[in-house]
């Protein structure tokens, strides 16, 4: 229809008016580093795999997860999850139960028989991995994916290192550990067990490896001198747990005292309870605030009837009786003796005072620099001797399985670069998606799903797993608590809130784009983006 002049206007005509020229700031989509990813020693893309889990696509979630960590079912049980400590959701209600979802994914993968990605094309290189703990297993997995042949040797008869010999079965069922190790081995790893390596260079020469990853861990329990009578029984926790793992538990009696305040002390005390000790008492020289063991481990130990003597040191052990000296804390938080003493009946004393490394195998490798009992490593975990890499507890870092897995991955990438004669590139690091960048109003309120715990009675008497997994519904629920910090999760907010229709929705998985012809730069999209994935940057005028 012909329109009357000027008074009546045809649709679509305003698109000739490019209001983008008004803009002094422009919105830009960004990906920021979620704090969970930032905190993960294994370098997992947690937000990335939760994204898939949120939609119930557990296989994609698991496949994203194992890009970085081949042991999710294991780590979903034993990791102390610094990711959750860092999680921005703590400022809203409670951290997302990342670890529980990880375990759910790991268990689901085992249950459904999902296999790890196939090995990469053969490079013709062979790498010797010494030590089949988490660092060695991680390195073996990543090396296979990079196409290198792997010879994995371990002094013990079975693989897993401290995962098997240090962590009690009630925390990590052996079937789970075996399943995840077997899946790595299925990628084609040459395994040599019960094979202590005494000289690293000789070992390398003997097998013709092009590079070495040293991950023998810290297997020596620290001892202190405690005056003790002949009839007293004193063992170190590492050996104690190792023996239990080998189904050869030592007889400790009914009253067991554990000396130390770390997670190993908790494991030892709880294991002692399971072996029949009526009294399992931890003696620790400082108070609970200062205790290095993870709070939930302490909580569980106390829940199982383990007792703790705080602010106490052991003076001597004689005739079934321990003499404890009371301590007090200085204003700096350090313990100092009081000169006051208590007594405690005990049939055995377990020392859980930390572990040392045994690096005697490096004696022939003079170029590997060792200090303070650990191996010096540089970028990508290479020691001072080219071609020899080290990680896990032998490298200077926190001694956790998660750190070890990260070391294994980094070392594999470092070895790969070394074998190719390349300098490893450090990946681009995004700005941190800190809490102040989020608009948390949009997130639904929800409490964290607690992993149900076995009834106390049951867990005091056997080695059944204490913490059970999430049901699928709960795992999905927990995954959906993720705030997706710093990474677009396609909530359509920007698309909806733009007063100028200047956001183009590109479709599922494709996110959005700005139409700068019309964007006036008001910044509502950036303010209303729940996850902080839009940044306003000054327009160059």
């Amino acid at each position, binding site marked *: 229809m012909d329109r009357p002049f000027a008074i009546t206007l045809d*649709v679509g*005509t305003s698109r000739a008016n490019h209001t983008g020229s008004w803009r002094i700031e422009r919105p830009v989509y960004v990906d920021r580093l979620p704090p969970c990813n930032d905190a993960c020693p294994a370098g997992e893309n947690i937000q990335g795999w939760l994204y898939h889990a*949120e939609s119930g696509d557990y296989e994609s979630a698991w496949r994203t997860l194992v890009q970085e960590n081949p042991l999710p079912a294991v780590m979903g049980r034993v990791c102390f999850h610094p990711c959750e400590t860092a999680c921005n959701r703590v400022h809203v209600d409670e951290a997302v139960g990342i670890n529980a979802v990880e375990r759910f994914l790991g268990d689901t993968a085992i249950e459904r028989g999902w296999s790890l990605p196939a090995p990469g094309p053969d490079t013709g290189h062979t790498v010797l991995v010494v030590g089949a703990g988490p660092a060695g297993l991680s390195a073996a997995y990543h090396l296979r994916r990079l196409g290198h042949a792997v010879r994995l040797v371990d002094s013990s008869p079975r693989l897993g290192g401290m995962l098997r010999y240090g962590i009690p079965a009630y925390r990590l069922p052996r079937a789970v550990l075996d399943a995840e190790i077997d899946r790595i081995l299925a990628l084609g790893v040459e395994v040599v067990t019960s094979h202590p390596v005494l000289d690293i260079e000789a070992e390398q020469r003997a097998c013709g490896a092009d590079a070495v990853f040293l991950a023998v861990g810290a297997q020596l329990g620290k001892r202190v001198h405690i005056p003790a009578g002949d009839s007293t029984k004193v063992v170190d926790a590492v050996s104690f747990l190792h023996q239990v793992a080998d189904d050869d538990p030592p007889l400790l009696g009914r009253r067991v005292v554990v000396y130390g305040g770390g997670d190993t002390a908790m494991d030892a005390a709880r294991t002692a309870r399971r072996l029949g000790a009526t009294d399992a008492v931890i003696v620790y020289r400082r108070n609970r605030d200062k205790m290095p063991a993870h709070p939930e481990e302490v909580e569980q130990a106390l829940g199982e009837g383990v007792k703790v003597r705080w602010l106490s040191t052991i003076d001597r052990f004689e005739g079934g009786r321990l003499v404890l000296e009371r301590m007090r804390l200085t204003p700096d938080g350090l313990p100092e003796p009081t000169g006051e003493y208590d007594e405690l009946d005990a049939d055995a004393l377990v020392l859980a005072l930390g572990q040392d490394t045994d690096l005697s195998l490096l004696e022939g490798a003079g170029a590997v620099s060792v200090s303070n009992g650990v191996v010096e490593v540089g970028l990508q975990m290479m020691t001072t001797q080219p071609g020899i890499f080290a990680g896990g507890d032998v490298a200077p870092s926190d001694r956790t399985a998660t750190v070890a897995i990260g070391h294994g991955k980094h070392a594999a990438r470092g070895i790969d670069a070394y074998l190719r004669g390349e300098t490893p590139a450090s990946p681009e690091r995004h700005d941190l998606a800190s809490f102040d960048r989020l608009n948390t109003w949009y997130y639904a309120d929800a409490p964290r799903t607690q992993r149900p715990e076995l009834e106390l009675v049951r867990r005091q008497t056997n080695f059944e797993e204490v913490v059970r997994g999430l049901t699928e*519904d709960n795992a*999905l629920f927990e995954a959906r608590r993720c705030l997706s910090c710093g990474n677009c999760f396609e909530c359509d907010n920007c*698309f*909806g809130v733009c*007063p100028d229709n200047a956001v183009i929705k590109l479709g599922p998985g494709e996110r959005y784009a700005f139409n700068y012809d019309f964007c006036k730069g*008001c910044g*509502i999209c950036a303010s209303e983006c729940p996850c902080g994935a839009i940044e306003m940057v000054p327009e160059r005028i």
Partner: protein
Amino acid sequence: MSETRVHFYQVGSFAVGNRLLSAGERTVQSDRRRTNSIDSGHRACQGCGEALGARYALDAAMRVTSGQLVAVNATGCLEVFSTPFPETSWQIPWLHSLFGNAPAVATGVAAAMRVKGRDQVRVVGQAGDGGTVDIGFGTLSGMFERNDDVLFICYDNEGYMNTGVQRSAATPPAARTATTDAVGPEPGNPFGQGKDLPRIAMAHGIPYVATATVADLHDLERKVERAMSFHGARYLHVFVPCPLGWGAASNDTIHLARLAKETGIFPVYEAEYGEVTGVTKIRRPAPVTDYLRLQRRYAHLFGHPGRPDVVARLQAMADANIARYGLLATEEDE
């Protein structure tokens, strides 16, 4: 261990879309095929709440009527910024007549559609607060009283913004406008004045009255949908912050609308045939100062010495709203 149904969706239904929601649970605005009733290229200020509110409401009405919609617009910002010759932003049939007559013009359009046997074509009248509570009040009340088949939408930005931020009967107490300056013993707009138009609309006994804000799209769209399920006169009062007139940052438009609701300053509810039938509860309670401090029109209330007495009166008004409408969530609401 009991199994719980998964009902929680990360951003639940608070965000516009969310890939985890079923298509039916997403908003009209999340749809790539939404009408964009008011299209790009309009000349609204940066961060205009009214432009946003109009698109939200009309797109929802377009979906509910399968595109059989005509809009009648009063004079004001929305009209001026959308249709300066030779460009219009409207993608739907749209008519502007005068400042004070949009409800009556809408009545005429509805009558024409009925007499032409085109009952499926529904009519929306729309105006700012000036065109609704002041100059258009007579025709609006007449339209209500006759129960004409019109949904009238007021985009309330609490003043005459198009003419340079003068006071209207929707301007809140203490707010500075160009005609209620922040000077003298009672700075800003006086207390004890103004019209509560949603309640006046309810007093007409019309089928549906609702308030909404641009901060809660799901609520707004649901109300448009509900409104369109009735025939007869319906009224929707949408709270739309004005960055220019309020002296607020352009990126705070939705934030301010949210705070207006969460503080109790703007009660969000709906009513049918004169009785309140639903209240949108406050989710994260906030003091009125959170809302006031973001706006330069209230700047005279803060600083030194400031006017804590006036702030307290505004807080009391918000508290009265909370009590009157029962805006705080109770255990059963959780």
